[in-house]
């Protein structure tokens, strides 16, 4: 925002004129509600009448073959892509289609991309420190002090992601799996209500996968988590609810057993692997 914008922003002149910061309203259950969403790129319908509801505190896995629209769906939720039609609500108060990326992020939707990016020159602790929800303008950042409660908050997340022993080591020495966990930890520092996790176990060893499954299941309940994943074994190990996407819309929804016995699903997706 330019200086001019700040000066002409009439909302900021008097405090009582400022729009009320309204908390996310989940009294009616769902934290994310997508209805009849469609988006097409050059005539290709990436998302086609998608309906999806995520409950507060739920852990949901989304699977589907390549090109099923999983990443596009994430882009729509985080505000990166605008749908042509449909509506997307966060709780029952926030219409995500009226908001831009940083606003959506600060509202409490965190996204982890496929490739982990951590700050390799900084320690694990410092990585989490930078990610912490705080005033991120220049002078407050310059004069910021590490308060004991912040330290506790970071240590808590460190314990969750199991990297306490590497607390003061540079993030550059972490293994691929550890970097993924650190990145999930960085998301957690931002205190999101809804976590979108894109292919968390790609390239991980068996043990790392197990550890990741534990981590993600332990998050559910406190946060709502949406996991997009290819690895069926991994999905089976964490999923309570699975949504199968195909050609931009929901093909099936239910428990892993229900879904994997669905003849339609077997035809388009599971059949290929079996």
């Amino acid at each position: 925002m330019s200086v001019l914008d700040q000066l002409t922003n009439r909302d900021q002149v008097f405090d009582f004129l400022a729009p009320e910061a309204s908390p996310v309203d989940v009294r009616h259950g769902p934290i994310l509600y997508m209805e009849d969403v469609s988006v097409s790129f050059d005539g290709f319908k990436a998302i086609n009448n998608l309906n999806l509801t995520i409950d507060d505190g739920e852990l949901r896995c989304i699977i589907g073959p390549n090109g099923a629209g999983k990443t596009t769906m994430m882009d729509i939720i985080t505000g990166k892509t605008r749908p042509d039609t449909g509506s997307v609500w966060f709780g029952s108060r926030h219409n995500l289609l009226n908001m831009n990326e940083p606003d959506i992020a600060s509202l409490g939707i965190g996204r982890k991309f496929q490739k982990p990016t951590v700050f390799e020159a900084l320690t694990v602790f410092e990585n989490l420190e930078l990610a912490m929800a705080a005033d991120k303008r220049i002078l407050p950042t310059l004069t910021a002090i590490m308060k004991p409660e912040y330290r506790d908050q970071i240590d808590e997340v460190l314990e969750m992601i199991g990297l306490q022993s590497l607390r003061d080591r540079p993030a550059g020495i972490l293994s691929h799996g550890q970097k993924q966990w650190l990145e999930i930890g960085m998301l957690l520092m931002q205190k999101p209500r809804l976590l979108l996790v894109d292919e968390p176990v790609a390239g991980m060893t068996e043990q790392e996968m197990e550890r990741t499954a534990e981590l993600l299941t332990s998050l559910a309940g406190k946060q709502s988590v949406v996991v997009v994943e290819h690895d069926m074994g991994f999905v089976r190990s964490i999923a309570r609810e699975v949504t199968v996407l195909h050609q931009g819309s929901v093909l099936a929804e239910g428990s892993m057993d229900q879904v994997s016995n669905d003849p339609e699903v077997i035809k388009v997706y599971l059949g290929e692997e079996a």
Partner: protein
Amino acid sequence: MTSSNMWLLRPLQERSTQIFLGLLTAAVVVVTILHLATPEGSALHVSAYTVTLLGKYLCYALLAVAVDLVWGYLGILSLGHGAFFALGGYAMGMYLMRQIGDRGVYGDPILPDFMVFLNWQELPWYWHGFDMAWFAFAMVLLVPGALAFVFGFLAFRSRVTGVYLSIITQALTFALMLAFFRNEMGFGGNNGLTDFKDILGFDLRSDGTRLGLFIATGIALAVGYVVCRGIVTSKLGRVSVACRDAEARTRFLGYRVERVQLFVFVVSAMLAGVAGALYVPQVGIINPSEFSPLFSIEIVVWVALGGRATLYGAVIGAVLVNYAKTVFTGVMPDAWLFALGALFVLVTVFLPKGIAGLLQKRRKATDDDGANAQEVAA
């Protein structure tokens, strides 16, 4: 102690800063004592010439620290920091010119000699105020700061980084050099500003003033070092490193990367301006050659030799290279640039982290031994 100045005090509790400040103080005190207390002609005597030479090295050291702040910690390779140095120098030079008063060759009480020579009738508007020390000293900070602000605002907002930014900074200093070469600019053309008489009432040719300037430069270097160290050890410093290594990711965490870059860049430019301002009264002249692109590249070589992202490495690099330059240009003037080039290549190949990297490796080796011993004991 309020929380808002904590960032400035933090470095003082840090061992490396204490060592640096201790060594710097010791060096300044020893030189002062050797200059004042030993008779001329004694083997231990430090002549006024040497004092001024050392003062010049300290100016370069401060300049190198400023470059290391943006290059080492923010990843912005500025090949134009000579411009901020020279602007600070010109601001000081204008003050010194106005101090000459009617003692110039033409004896004009207001106009500097070169203006009389060019038949100018009155002082250009931008020369007003420079007869007052406080105004001139403020300009030493404000002019380089303002240029860095405007330049950085445009460049960082358009997300110009990497090689492209380096090239633009190089173009910036080159353009300024060409501008300052013109007589019509009113900065003395290619002769620059010179023939200074006194500063704050002290005669610039007296040994006492020279010693005073040397000590002032030592203090400026200490303060500049602590300010930079304060920034890099603050959370903002860690955000800078984050911007350096993964700009997009930092933006995604909610930091305004362009503002971080702008802030650090402006601070660095101001420090460079102070270095230039202290340099001018000691060498007695400022001319457009300080804007030369080559000089700016040389600064980067000092920092690279000393070791990036350490700050004290920049000081070591600046002092060592310039000492070598003094020695070499005395013995074999033609060979200096070859020697500098060779040194740069050798250090890049064998000491990628510079001289500071060598020191760190040493310390780490002893630290690791200690840690291993502890583990064994546990």
